Protein backbone atom coordinates (compact mmCIF):
# COMPACT_ATOMS: atom_id res chain seq x y z
CA UNK A 1 0.00 0.00 0.00
CA UNK A 2 2.61 2.46 1.08
CA UNK A 3 4.71 1.37 -1.87
CA UNK A 4 1.91 2.28 -4.24
CA UNK A 5 1.54 5.68 -2.61
CA UNK A 6 5.27 6.27 -2.80
CA UNK A 7 5.30 5.35 -6.49
CA UNK A 8 2.41 7.66 -7.18
CA UNK A 9 4.19 10.53 -5.43
CA UNK A 10 7.51 9.78 -7.13
CA UNK A 11 5.99 9.68 -10.61
CA UNK A 12 3.06 12.08 -10.51
CA UNK A 13 3.68 14.64 -7.81
CA UNK A 14 7.42 15.03 -7.73
CA UNK A 15 8.03 16.19 -11.34
CA UNK A 16 6.11 19.41 -10.83
CA UNK A 17 8.41 20.28 -7.95
CA UNK A 18 11.63 19.30 -9.70
CA UNK A 19 13.78 21.78 -11.54
CA UNK A 20 11.79 23.22 -14.40
CA UNK A 21 8.51 22.08 -12.91
CA UNK A 22 5.55 24.34 -12.25
CA UNK A 23 6.06 24.45 -8.50
CA UNK A 24 9.85 24.40 -8.55
CA UNK A 25 9.95 27.21 -5.98
CA UNK A 26 8.22 25.13 -3.39
CA UNK A 27 10.57 22.16 -3.65
CA UNK A 28 11.74 22.59 -0.02
CA UNK A 29 8.16 22.29 1.18
CA UNK A 30 7.58 19.19 -0.93
CA UNK A 31 10.86 17.70 0.20
CA UNK A 32 9.99 18.24 3.85
CA UNK A 33 6.67 16.48 3.51
CA UNK A 34 8.05 13.62 1.44
CA UNK A 35 10.87 12.83 3.84
CA UNK A 36 8.42 13.13 6.67
CA UNK A 37 6.61 10.12 5.29
CA UNK A 38 9.37 8.13 3.60
CA UNK A 39 13.01 7.51 4.32
CA UNK A 40 14.84 9.67 1.77
CA UNK A 41 16.86 7.85 -0.90
CA UNK A 42 19.89 10.15 -0.59
CA UNK A 43 23.22 8.70 0.32
CA UNK A 44 26.23 10.63 1.48
CA UNK A 45 28.24 11.93 -1.46
CA UNK A 46 31.55 12.51 0.29
CA UNK A 47 33.19 10.64 3.14
CA UNK A 48 30.48 10.23 5.76
CA UNK A 49 30.92 10.70 9.48
CA UNK A 50 28.57 8.13 10.88
CA UNK A 51 27.33 9.01 14.33
CA UNK A 52 24.16 7.02 14.38
CA UNK A 53 22.04 4.74 12.27
CA UNK A 54 18.93 6.91 12.41
CA UNK A 55 18.53 10.16 10.52
CA UNK A 56 17.62 13.42 12.17
CA UNK A 57 13.92 13.30 11.47
CA UNK A 58 13.53 10.00 13.26
CA UNK A 59 15.69 11.23 16.14
CA UNK A 60 13.39 14.18 16.54
CA UNK A 61 10.29 11.99 16.42
CA UNK A 62 11.62 9.89 19.29
CA UNK A 63 12.18 13.01 21.37
CA UNK A 64 8.62 14.11 20.64
CA UNK A 65 7.40 10.64 21.67
CA UNK A 66 9.36 10.98 24.90
CA UNK A 67 7.45 14.16 25.65
CA UNK A 68 4.03 12.56 25.11
CA UNK A 69 3.68 11.30 28.73
CA UNK A 70 4.38 14.80 30.04
CA UNK A 71 1.90 16.23 27.51
CA UNK A 72 -0.88 13.80 28.40
CA UNK A 73 -0.32 14.29 32.11
CA UNK A 74 -0.23 18.03 31.57
CA UNK A 75 -3.63 17.86 29.88
CA UNK A 76 -5.10 15.91 32.75
CA UNK A 77 -3.50 18.19 35.32
CA UNK A 78 -4.85 21.29 33.57
CA UNK A 79 -8.36 19.96 34.06
CA UNK A 80 -7.56 18.69 37.55
CA UNK A 81 -6.28 22.07 38.72
CA UNK A 82 -9.20 23.87 37.14
CA UNK A 83 -11.85 21.72 38.80
CA UNK A 84 -9.91 21.80 42.07
CA UNK A 85 -9.98 25.58 41.97
CA UNK A 86 -13.64 25.85 41.08
CA UNK A 87 -14.49 23.18 43.61
CA UNK A 88 -16.46 21.10 41.12
CA UNK A 89 -16.23 17.35 41.14
CA UNK A 90 -15.12 15.84 37.85
CA UNK A 91 -14.19 12.44 36.51
CA UNK A 92 -10.81 11.63 35.04
CA UNK A 93 -12.21 11.87 31.53
CA UNK A 94 -13.79 15.27 32.14
CA UNK A 95 -10.55 16.62 33.49
CA UNK A 96 -8.61 15.24 30.58
CA UNK A 97 -11.03 16.60 28.00
CA UNK A 98 -11.02 20.03 29.63
CA UNK A 99 -7.23 20.04 29.50
CA UNK A 100 -7.20 18.73 25.94
CA UNK A 101 -9.35 21.63 24.78
CA UNK A 102 -7.09 24.09 26.61
CA UNK A 103 -3.73 22.64 25.61
CA UNK A 104 -4.30 21.51 22.05
CA UNK A 105 -4.63 25.06 20.60
CA UNK A 106 -1.26 25.97 22.12
CA UNK A 107 0.37 22.97 20.46
CA UNK A 108 -1.32 23.69 17.13
CA UNK A 109 -0.31 27.37 17.18
CA UNK A 110 3.25 26.55 18.16
CA UNK A 111 3.66 23.99 15.37
CA UNK A 112 1.73 25.96 12.77
CA UNK A 113 3.56 29.23 13.28
CA UNK A 114 6.99 27.69 13.82
CA UNK A 115 6.83 25.42 10.80
CA UNK A 116 5.39 28.28 8.76
CA UNK A 117 8.45 30.40 9.54
CA UNK A 118 10.72 27.46 8.75
CA UNK A 119 9.00 26.88 5.40
CA UNK A 120 9.28 30.55 4.45
CA UNK A 121 12.98 30.57 5.28
CA UNK A 122 13.58 27.33 3.42
CA UNK A 123 11.93 28.75 0.31
CA UNK A 124 13.80 32.08 0.51
CA UNK A 125 17.15 30.49 1.20
CA UNK A 126 16.51 27.50 -1.09
CA UNK A 127 17.50 24.83 1.39
CA UNK A 128 15.57 21.90 2.77
CA UNK A 129 13.15 22.41 5.59
CA UNK A 130 14.93 21.36 8.74
CA UNK A 131 13.25 19.03 11.14
CA UNK A 132 14.68 20.68 14.22
CA UNK A 133 11.44 22.45 14.88
CA UNK A 134 9.53 19.23 15.53
CA UNK A 135 10.97 19.11 19.04
CA UNK A 136 10.91 22.84 19.75
CA UNK A 137 7.29 22.98 18.63
CA UNK A 138 6.33 20.52 21.33
CA UNK A 139 8.63 22.00 24.00
CA UNK A 140 7.21 25.50 23.64
CA UNK A 141 3.63 24.75 24.75
CA UNK A 142 4.81 22.36 27.44
CA UNK A 143 6.85 25.02 29.21
CA UNK A 144 4.11 27.67 29.20
CA UNK A 145 1.27 28.40 31.60
CA UNK A 146 -2.00 27.13 30.20
CA UNK A 147 -3.87 30.42 30.13
CA UNK A 148 -1.40 32.27 27.92
CA UNK A 149 -3.10 33.98 24.92
CA UNK A 150 -2.47 32.23 21.63
CA UNK A 151 -1.17 35.30 19.83
CA UNK A 152 1.57 35.65 22.44
CA UNK A 153 2.62 32.09 21.74
CA UNK A 154 2.70 32.92 18.04
CA UNK A 155 4.80 36.07 18.56
CA UNK A 156 7.22 34.25 20.83
CA UNK A 157 7.52 31.37 18.38
CA UNK A 158 8.29 33.71 15.50
CA UNK A 159 10.87 35.51 17.62
CA UNK A 160 12.49 32.31 18.81
CA UNK A 161 12.69 30.67 15.39
CA UNK A 162 14.01 33.77 13.62
CA UNK A 163 16.27 35.33 16.25
CA UNK A 164 17.12 32.14 18.11
CA UNK A 165 17.75 29.96 15.12
CA UNK A 166 17.48 31.27 11.58
CA UNK A 167 19.89 34.19 12.01
CA UNK A 168 22.55 31.73 13.03
CA UNK A 169 21.95 29.55 10.00
CA UNK A 170 19.04 27.30 10.93
CA UNK A 171 18.81 23.92 12.63
CA UNK A 172 22.07 22.71 14.06
CA UNK A 173 23.63 26.16 14.10
CA UNK A 174 21.69 27.78 16.92
CA UNK A 175 23.46 28.89 20.07
CA UNK A 176 20.39 29.07 22.28
CA UNK A 177 17.72 26.47 22.85
CA UNK A 178 14.80 27.60 20.67
CA UNK A 179 12.01 26.67 23.06
CA UNK A 180 13.69 28.42 25.95
CA UNK A 181 14.28 31.47 23.81
CA UNK A 182 10.53 31.58 23.24
CA UNK A 183 9.85 31.16 26.94
CA UNK A 184 12.40 33.77 27.96
CA UNK A 185 10.90 36.15 25.42
CA UNK A 186 7.44 35.69 26.90
CA UNK A 187 8.77 35.90 30.42
CA UNK A 188 10.31 39.33 29.85
CA UNK A 189 7.77 40.62 27.34
CA UNK A 190 4.53 39.71 29.11
CA UNK A 191 5.49 39.07 32.73
CA UNK A 192 1.91 39.30 33.97
CA UNK A 193 1.04 36.25 31.90
CA UNK A 194 4.09 34.26 32.85
CA UNK A 195 4.34 34.59 36.60
CA UNK A 196 2.22 35.26 39.63
CA UNK A 197 -0.53 33.17 41.12
CA UNK A 198 -3.28 33.72 38.55
CA UNK A 199 -1.77 32.25 35.43
CA UNK A 200 -1.12 28.62 36.27
CA UNK A 201 -4.70 27.45 36.45
CA UNK A 202 -6.98 27.55 33.44
CA UNK A 203 -9.50 30.35 33.89
CA UNK A 204 -7.83 30.90 37.24
CA UNK A 205 -8.75 34.54 37.60
CA UNK A 206 -12.46 33.85 37.61
CA UNK A 207 -12.09 30.77 39.76
CA UNK A 208 -9.77 32.39 42.28
CA UNK A 209 -12.51 33.04 44.81
CA UNK A 210 -13.26 29.40 45.29
CA UNK A 211 -9.79 28.12 46.02
CA UNK A 212 -9.70 25.20 48.36
CA UNK A 213 -8.02 25.73 51.69
CA UNK A 214 -4.29 26.30 51.42
CA UNK A 215 -4.39 26.19 47.65
CA UNK A 216 -3.41 29.55 46.26
CA UNK A 217 -2.99 28.83 42.60
CA UNK A 218 0.66 29.75 42.92
CA UNK A 219 3.33 27.27 41.98
CA UNK A 220 5.38 25.69 44.73
CA UNK A 221 8.31 27.86 43.73
CA UNK A 222 6.30 31.03 44.02
CA UNK A 223 5.01 29.92 47.38
CA UNK A 224 8.54 29.17 48.47
CA UNK A 225 9.75 32.64 47.51
CA UNK A 226 6.78 34.52 48.88
CA UNK A 227 5.86 32.76 52.04
CA UNK A 228 9.19 31.10 52.64
CA UNK A 229 8.47 29.56 55.98
CA UNK A 230 6.21 26.59 56.07
CA UNK A 231 5.29 26.49 52.41
CA UNK A 232 5.96 22.77 52.42
CA UNK A 233 3.32 22.33 55.11
CA UNK A 234 0.94 24.74 53.42
CA UNK A 235 1.26 22.93 50.14
CA UNK A 236 0.91 19.69 52.00
CA UNK A 237 -2.52 20.73 53.24
CA UNK A 238 -3.69 21.31 49.71
CA UNK A 239 -2.04 18.51 47.81
CA UNK A 240 -1.11 15.85 50.34
CA UNK A 241 2.51 14.97 50.94
CA UNK A 242 4.33 17.83 49.19
CA UNK A 243 7.26 15.85 47.85
CA UNK A 244 5.02 13.11 46.53
CA UNK A 245 2.57 15.63 45.05
CA UNK A 246 5.23 17.49 43.16
CA UNK A 247 6.86 14.23 42.09
CA UNK A 248 3.59 12.96 40.67
CA UNK A 249 2.64 16.44 39.48
CA UNK A 250 -0.86 17.33 40.69
CA UNK A 251 0.24 20.85 41.51
CA UNK A 252 -0.08 24.10 39.55
CA UNK A 253 2.66 24.88 37.08
CA UNK A 254 3.52 25.07 33.40
CA UNK A 255 1.69 22.47 31.33
CA UNK A 256 4.37 19.83 30.92
CA UNK A 257 6.69 20.37 33.82
CA UNK A 258 4.70 19.48 36.92
CA UNK A 259 4.99 15.73 36.82
CA UNK A 260 8.51 14.48 37.44
CA UNK A 261 7.12 10.98 37.01
CA UNK A 262 5.93 11.61 33.44
CA UNK A 263 9.21 13.33 32.67
CA UNK A 264 11.14 10.34 33.97
CA UNK A 265 9.25 8.09 31.54
CA UNK A 266 10.42 10.44 28.80
CA UNK A 267 13.94 10.41 30.20
CA UNK A 268 13.92 6.61 30.10
CA UNK A 269 12.90 6.67 26.42
CA UNK A 270 15.68 9.16 25.64
CA UNK A 271 18.28 7.18 27.54
CA UNK A 272 17.31 3.75 26.15
CA UNK A 273 17.44 5.02 22.58
CA UNK A 274 20.67 6.85 23.40
CA UNK A 275 19.36 10.17 22.13
CA UNK A 276 19.57 12.15 25.36
CA UNK A 277 22.91 12.37 27.11
CA UNK A 278 22.90 10.62 30.49
CA UNK A 279 26.04 12.55 31.36
CA UNK A 280 24.22 15.87 31.24
CA UNK A 281 21.17 14.58 33.12
CA UNK A 282 23.21 12.92 35.85
CA UNK A 283 25.63 15.77 36.39
CA UNK A 284 22.73 18.23 36.29
CA UNK A 285 20.95 16.43 39.10
CA UNK A 286 24.18 16.21 41.07
CA UNK A 287 24.79 19.92 40.53
CA UNK A 288 21.34 20.89 41.74
CA UNK A 289 21.59 18.59 44.73
CA UNK A 290 25.01 19.98 45.64
CA UNK A 291 23.77 23.54 45.52
CA UNK A 292 20.73 22.53 47.59
CA UNK A 293 23.01 20.98 50.22
CA UNK A 294 25.24 24.05 50.28
CA UNK A 295 22.19 26.23 50.87
CA UNK A 296 20.99 23.90 53.62
CA UNK A 297 24.37 24.12 55.31
CA UNK A 298 24.35 27.93 55.37
CA UNK A 299 20.62 28.39 55.70
CA UNK A 300 20.19 32.05 56.62
CA UNK A 301 16.62 32.33 55.34
CA UNK A 302 13.74 29.92 55.06
CA UNK A 303 14.01 29.37 51.35
CA UNK A 304 17.57 28.20 51.84
CA UNK A 305 16.30 25.61 54.28
CA UNK A 306 14.19 23.89 51.65
CA UNK A 307 15.56 20.34 51.54
CA UNK A 308 17.85 19.67 48.60
CA UNK A 309 15.72 16.82 47.27
CA UNK A 310 12.68 19.13 47.11
CA UNK A 311 14.53 21.31 44.63
CA UNK A 312 14.77 18.38 42.23
CA UNK A 313 11.01 17.96 41.97
CA UNK A 314 9.93 21.60 42.22
CA UNK A 315 9.42 23.87 39.25
CA UNK A 316 10.76 23.11 35.81
CA UNK A 317 14.04 21.60 36.92
CA UNK A 318 13.30 18.03 35.84
CA UNK A 319 11.73 19.12 32.57
CA UNK A 320 14.61 21.43 31.75
CA UNK A 321 17.38 19.02 32.58
CA UNK A 322 15.79 16.10 30.69
CA UNK A 323 14.44 17.75 27.55
CA UNK A 324 16.21 21.09 27.20
CA UNK A 325 19.68 20.78 28.65
CA UNK A 326 20.26 17.65 26.57
CA UNK A 327 19.51 19.39 23.27
CA UNK A 328 22.51 18.09 21.29
CA UNK A 329 22.95 21.31 19.31
CA UNK A 330 23.26 23.72 22.20
CA UNK A 331 24.92 21.45 24.75
CA UNK A 332 28.62 20.79 25.06
CA UNK A 333 29.92 18.27 22.56
CA UNK A 334 32.87 16.85 24.42
CA UNK A 335 32.40 14.14 27.00
CA UNK A 336 34.11 15.99 29.85
CA UNK A 337 32.38 19.15 28.71
CA UNK A 338 28.99 17.49 29.17
CA UNK A 339 29.70 16.77 32.83
CA UNK A 340 30.77 20.36 33.46
CA UNK A 341 27.88 21.77 31.43
CA UNK A 342 25.25 19.66 33.18
CA UNK A 343 26.66 20.25 36.63
CA UNK A 344 26.72 24.01 36.18
CA UNK A 345 23.14 24.04 34.87
CA UNK A 346 21.90 22.31 38.01
CA UNK A 347 24.11 24.39 40.24
CA UNK A 348 23.13 27.75 38.71
CA UNK A 349 19.45 26.83 38.41
CA UNK A 350 19.07 26.36 42.15
CA UNK A 351 21.27 29.37 42.87
CA UNK A 352 19.15 31.71 40.72
CA UNK A 353 15.98 30.16 42.13
CA UNK A 354 16.91 30.84 45.73
CA UNK A 355 18.89 34.06 45.46
CA UNK A 356 16.65 35.95 43.08
CA UNK A 357 12.98 35.90 44.03
CA UNK A 358 12.15 37.78 40.82
CA UNK A 359 13.17 34.75 38.79
CA UNK A 360 11.83 31.72 40.60
CA UNK A 361 12.27 29.67 37.46
CA UNK A 362 16.05 29.68 37.47
CA UNK A 363 16.28 26.61 35.27
CA UNK A 364 15.37 28.56 32.15
CA UNK A 365 18.03 31.20 32.75
CA UNK A 366 20.61 28.66 33.83
CA UNK A 367 20.19 26.59 30.68
CA UNK A 368 20.26 29.64 28.40
CA UNK A 369 23.38 30.89 30.16
CA UNK A 370 25.13 27.57 29.86
CA UNK A 371 24.06 27.31 26.20
CA UNK A 372 26.15 30.40 25.61
CA UNK A 373 29.04 29.00 27.64
CA UNK A 374 29.00 25.51 26.05
CA UNK A 375 31.41 26.32 23.18
CA UNK A 376 33.81 27.86 25.70
CA UNK A 377 33.74 24.73 27.84
CA UNK A 378 34.40 22.60 24.76
CA UNK A 379 37.28 24.84 23.76
CA UNK A 380 39.07 24.42 27.07
CA UNK A 381 38.38 20.70 27.24
CA UNK A 382 39.90 20.25 23.81
CA UNK A 383 42.88 22.49 24.59
CA UNK A 384 43.54 20.60 27.81
CA UNK A 385 43.41 17.34 25.91
CA UNK A 386 45.88 18.61 23.33
CA UNK A 387 48.27 19.77 26.05
CA UNK A 388 48.05 16.48 27.90
CA UNK A 389 48.81 14.49 24.79
CA UNK A 390 51.67 16.77 23.85
CA UNK A 391 53.23 16.24 27.24
CA UNK A 392 52.84 12.49 26.91
CA UNK A 393 54.44 12.42 23.49
CA UNK A 394 58.16 11.62 23.59
CA UNK A 395 59.97 14.75 22.49
CA UNK A 396 61.88 14.22 19.30
CA UNK A 397 65.59 14.32 20.01
CA UNK A 398 66.91 17.64 18.94
Amino acid at each position, binding site marked *: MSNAIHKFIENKVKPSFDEGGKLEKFYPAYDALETFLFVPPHTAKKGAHIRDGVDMKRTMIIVVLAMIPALLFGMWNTGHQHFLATGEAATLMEKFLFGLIKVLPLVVVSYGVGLGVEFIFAIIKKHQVNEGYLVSGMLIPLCLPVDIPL*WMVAVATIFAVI*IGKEVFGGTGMNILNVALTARAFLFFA*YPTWMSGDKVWIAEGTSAANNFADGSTGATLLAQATERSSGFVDAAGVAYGDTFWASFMGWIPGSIGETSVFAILIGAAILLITGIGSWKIMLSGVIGAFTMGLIFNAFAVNEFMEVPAHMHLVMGGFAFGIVFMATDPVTASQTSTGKYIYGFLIGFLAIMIRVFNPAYPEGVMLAILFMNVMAPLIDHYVIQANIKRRQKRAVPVAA
Partner: protein
Amino acid sequence: MSETAEAQVQDEAAVEPKEPLFSAKNKRLLSDPLNDDNPITIQVLGICSALAITVQVKQAFVMAVSVLFVMIGANLIVSWMRNLIPSRVRIIVQLVIVAALVILVDQVLKAFVYDVSKQLSVFVGLIITNCIIMGRLEAFALGNKAWPSFLDAIGNAAGYGWILIAVAVVREFFGSGKFWGIQVIPDAFYEMGYFNNGFMILPPMALVVVGIIIWIQRSKNTKLIEEN
Protein backbone atom coordinates in the same frame (compact mmCIF):
# COMPACT_ATOMS: atom_id res chain seq x y z
CA MET B 1 27.71 77.58 14.23
CA SER B 2 26.49 78.37 10.74
CA GLU B 3 28.49 81.58 10.60
CA THR B 4 31.77 79.95 11.42
CA ALA B 5 31.01 77.20 8.98
CA GLU B 6 30.32 79.65 6.26
CA ALA B 7 33.47 81.59 7.02
CA GLN B 8 35.34 78.36 6.80
CA VAL B 9 33.67 77.56 3.54
CA GLN B 10 34.86 80.81 2.00
CA ASP B 11 38.30 80.32 3.41
CA GLU B 12 38.58 76.86 1.90
CA ALA B 13 37.27 78.02 -1.41
CA ALA B 14 39.82 80.87 -1.55
CA VAL B 15 42.80 78.70 -0.75
CA GLU B 16 41.94 75.75 -2.93
CA PRO B 17 39.77 76.75 -5.79
CA LYS B 18 40.45 73.48 -7.54
CA GLU B 19 38.43 71.17 -5.37
CA PRO B 20 34.71 71.95 -5.48
CA LEU B 21 32.89 72.05 -2.15
CA PHE B 22 30.93 68.95 -2.93
CA SER B 23 33.46 66.96 -4.86
CA ALA B 24 32.86 63.24 -5.13
CA LYS B 25 35.28 62.71 -2.27
CA ASN B 26 33.53 65.17 -0.01
CA LYS B 27 30.13 63.75 -0.84
CA ARG B 28 31.34 60.34 0.20
CA LEU B 29 32.35 61.79 3.55
CA LEU B 30 28.69 62.57 4.01
CA SER B 31 27.11 59.49 2.54
CA ASP B 32 29.44 56.68 3.58
CA PRO B 33 28.67 56.82 7.28
CA LEU B 34 24.95 56.60 6.50
CA ASN B 35 25.26 53.14 5.07
CA ASP B 36 28.51 51.53 3.91
CA ASP B 37 30.54 52.72 6.87
CA ASN B 38 27.88 53.31 9.50
CA PRO B 39 29.41 54.00 12.91
CA ILE B 40 26.93 51.76 14.73
CA THR B 41 26.11 48.91 12.41
CA ILE B 42 29.46 48.52 10.64
CA GLN B 43 32.07 49.93 12.99
CA VAL B 44 30.03 48.92 16.05
CA LEU B 45 30.82 52.09 17.98
CA GLY B 46 28.54 54.02 20.28
CA ILE B 47 26.53 50.90 21.06
CA CYS B 48 26.09 51.71 24.74
CA SER B 49 24.05 54.83 24.11
CA ALA B 50 22.15 53.10 21.33
CA LEU B 51 21.00 50.53 23.87
CA ALA B 52 20.30 52.91 26.70
CA ILE B 53 18.33 55.80 25.28
CA THR B 54 16.28 54.29 22.48
CA VAL B 55 13.20 53.52 24.54
CA GLN B 56 11.43 56.61 23.22
CA VAL B 57 11.80 58.42 19.93
CA LYS B 58 11.97 61.81 21.62
CA GLN B 59 14.96 60.85 23.74
CA ALA B 60 16.72 59.31 20.77
CA PHE B 61 16.10 62.41 18.65
CA VAL B 62 17.42 64.78 21.30
CA MET B 63 20.43 62.52 21.77
CA ALA B 64 21.07 62.42 18.03
CA VAL B 65 20.90 66.21 17.77
CA SER B 66 23.20 66.62 20.78
CA VAL B 67 25.76 64.27 19.30
CA LEU B 68 25.49 66.08 15.98
CA PHE B 69 26.25 69.40 17.64
CA VAL B 70 29.14 68.10 19.74
CA MET B 71 30.60 66.26 16.83
CA ILE B 72 30.53 69.20 14.43
CA GLY B 73 32.00 71.50 17.07
CA ALA B 74 34.71 69.12 18.14
CA ASN B 75 35.68 68.14 14.62
CA LEU B 76 35.92 71.76 13.53
CA ILE B 77 37.90 72.97 16.54
CA VAL B 78 40.28 70.06 16.47
CA SER B 79 40.73 70.43 12.76
CA TRP B 80 41.59 74.11 13.12
CA MET B 81 43.96 73.41 15.96
CA ARG B 82 45.47 70.31 14.48
CA ASN B 83 48.85 71.88 13.73
CA LEU B 84 49.09 73.43 17.20
CA ILE B 85 48.30 70.31 19.24
CA PRO B 86 51.41 68.41 20.34
CA SER B 87 50.72 64.78 19.53
CA ARG B 88 51.71 63.62 23.02
CA VAL B 89 48.88 65.46 24.72
CA ARG B 90 46.36 65.31 21.89
CA ILE B 91 43.93 63.01 23.70
CA ILE B 92 43.70 65.38 26.65
CA VAL B 93 43.20 68.36 24.37
CA GLN B 94 40.46 66.51 22.50
CA LEU B 95 38.82 65.54 25.75
CA VAL B 96 38.79 69.10 26.98
CA ILE B 97 37.22 70.32 23.74
CA VAL B 98 34.56 67.59 23.74
CA ALA B 99 33.85 68.04 27.43
CA ALA B 100 33.36 71.79 27.00
CA LEU B 101 30.89 71.20 24.18
CA VAL B 102 29.04 68.50 26.12
CA ILE B 103 28.63 70.79 29.12
CA LEU B 104 27.23 73.38 26.77
CA VAL B 105 24.75 70.86 25.36
CA ASP B 106 23.84 69.68 28.82
CA GLN B 107 23.04 73.20 29.99
CA VAL B 108 20.95 73.92 26.91
CA LEU B 109 18.98 70.70 27.36
CA LYS B 110 18.38 71.49 31.02
CA ALA B 111 17.17 74.95 30.11
CA PHE B 112 14.82 74.09 27.26
CA VAL B 113 13.84 70.40 27.40
CA TYR B 114 14.16 69.64 31.09
CA ASP B 115 12.07 66.45 31.06
CA VAL B 116 14.09 64.86 28.29
CA SER B 117 17.27 65.98 29.98
CA LYS B 118 16.10 64.17 33.12
CA GLN B 119 15.42 60.98 31.18
CA LEU B 120 18.73 61.08 29.35
CA SER B 121 20.39 61.71 32.72
CA VAL B 122 23.95 60.49 32.70
CA PHE B 123 23.99 59.68 29.01
CA VAL B 124 24.39 63.32 28.00
CA GLY B 125 27.57 63.47 30.05
CA LEU B 126 28.65 60.19 28.56
CA ILE B 127 28.73 61.73 25.08
CA ILE B 128 32.28 62.67 26.12
CA THR B 129 33.25 59.03 26.04
CA ASN B 130 31.23 58.21 22.93
CA CYS B 131 33.67 56.21 20.85
CA ILE B 132 32.37 57.68 17.62
CA ILE B 133 33.39 61.22 18.57
CA MET B 134 36.85 60.34 19.80
CA GLY B 135 37.28 58.01 16.87
CA ARG B 136 36.47 60.67 14.29
CA LEU B 137 38.71 63.22 16.02
CA GLU B 138 41.61 60.80 16.05
CA ALA B 139 41.06 59.28 12.67
CA PHE B 140 39.86 62.25 10.67
CA ALA B 141 39.89 65.75 12.17
CA LEU B 142 43.52 65.53 13.26
CA GLY B 143 44.64 65.00 9.69
CA ASN B 144 42.16 66.95 7.58
CA LYS B 145 41.12 70.48 6.86
CA ALA B 146 38.07 72.01 8.45
CA TRP B 147 35.57 71.61 5.59
CA PRO B 148 36.04 67.86 5.10
CA SER B 149 36.07 67.47 8.89
CA PHE B 150 32.80 69.33 9.06
CA LEU B 151 31.24 67.04 6.46
CA ASP B 152 32.67 64.00 8.18
CA ALA B 153 31.11 65.11 11.45
CA ILE B 154 27.70 65.59 9.88
CA GLY B 155 27.92 62.27 8.08
CA ASN B 156 28.89 60.27 11.13
CA ALA B 157 26.49 61.99 13.46
CA ALA B 158 23.69 61.42 10.97
CA GLY B 159 24.70 57.80 10.55
CA TYR B 160 24.59 57.42 14.31
CA GLY B 161 21.38 59.39 14.59
CA TRP B 162 19.31 57.52 12.05
CA ILE B 163 20.09 54.15 13.59
CA LEU B 164 19.23 55.55 17.00
CA ILE B 165 15.91 56.91 15.81
CA ALA B 166 15.08 53.77 13.81
CA VAL B 167 15.67 51.59 16.87
CA ALA B 168 13.68 53.97 19.02
CA VAL B 169 10.71 53.95 16.62
CA VAL B 170 10.55 50.15 16.77
CA ARG B 171 11.01 50.00 20.52
CA GLU B 172 8.53 52.71 21.35
CA PHE B 173 5.93 51.27 18.98
CA PHE B 174 6.05 47.74 20.32
CA GLY B 175 7.08 48.61 23.86
CA SER B 176 4.59 51.37 24.65
CA GLY B 177 2.37 51.54 21.55
CA LYS B 178 3.41 55.15 21.04
CA PHE B 179 5.34 57.41 18.71
CA TRP B 180 6.92 60.56 20.17
CA GLY B 181 4.82 60.04 23.27
CA ILE B 182 1.54 59.91 21.34
CA GLN B 183 -0.42 56.70 21.40
CA VAL B 184 -0.63 55.19 17.92
CA ILE B 185 -2.00 51.73 18.66
CA PRO B 186 -5.75 52.29 19.06
CA ASP B 187 -7.50 51.42 22.29
CA ALA B 188 -9.60 48.88 20.42
CA PHE B 189 -6.51 46.70 20.07
CA TYR B 190 -5.90 46.72 23.80
CA GLU B 191 -9.53 45.87 24.42
CA MET B 192 -9.18 42.91 22.09
CA GLY B 193 -6.40 41.57 24.30
CA TYR B 194 -3.30 43.15 22.86
CA PHE B 195 -0.50 43.86 25.31
CA ASN B 196 2.58 46.02 25.07
CA ASN B 197 5.75 44.04 24.83
CA GLY B 198 7.71 44.62 28.04
CA PHE B 199 10.83 43.07 26.55
CA MET B 200 11.07 45.95 24.08
CA ILE B 201 11.67 48.38 26.92
CA LEU B 202 14.62 46.37 28.24
CA PRO B 203 18.07 47.11 26.77
CA PRO B 204 18.68 43.57 25.42
CA MET B 205 15.89 44.10 22.90
CA ALA B 206 17.71 47.18 21.56
CA LEU B 207 20.60 44.89 20.81
CA VAL B 208 18.28 42.53 18.96
CA VAL B 209 16.77 45.41 16.98
CA VAL B 210 20.23 46.73 16.07
CA GLY B 211 21.10 43.19 15.06
CA ILE B 212 18.06 42.98 12.81
CA ILE B 213 19.01 46.31 11.19
CA ILE B 214 22.53 44.97 10.58
CA TRP B 215 21.01 41.81 9.11
CA ILE B 216 18.77 43.72 6.70
CA GLN B 217 21.59 46.11 5.79
CA ARG B 218 24.03 43.33 5.03
CA SER B 219 21.62 41.41 2.91
CA LYS B 220 20.67 44.52 0.89
CA ASN B 221 24.10 46.08 0.54
CA THR B 222 26.19 43.78 -1.63
CA LYS B 223 29.42 45.55 -0.71
CA LEU B 224 29.08 44.34 2.85
CA ILE B 225 28.46 40.68 2.09
CA GLU B 226 31.51 38.83 3.28
CA GLU B 227 32.99 35.96 1.36
CA ASN B 228 32.33 32.81 3.30
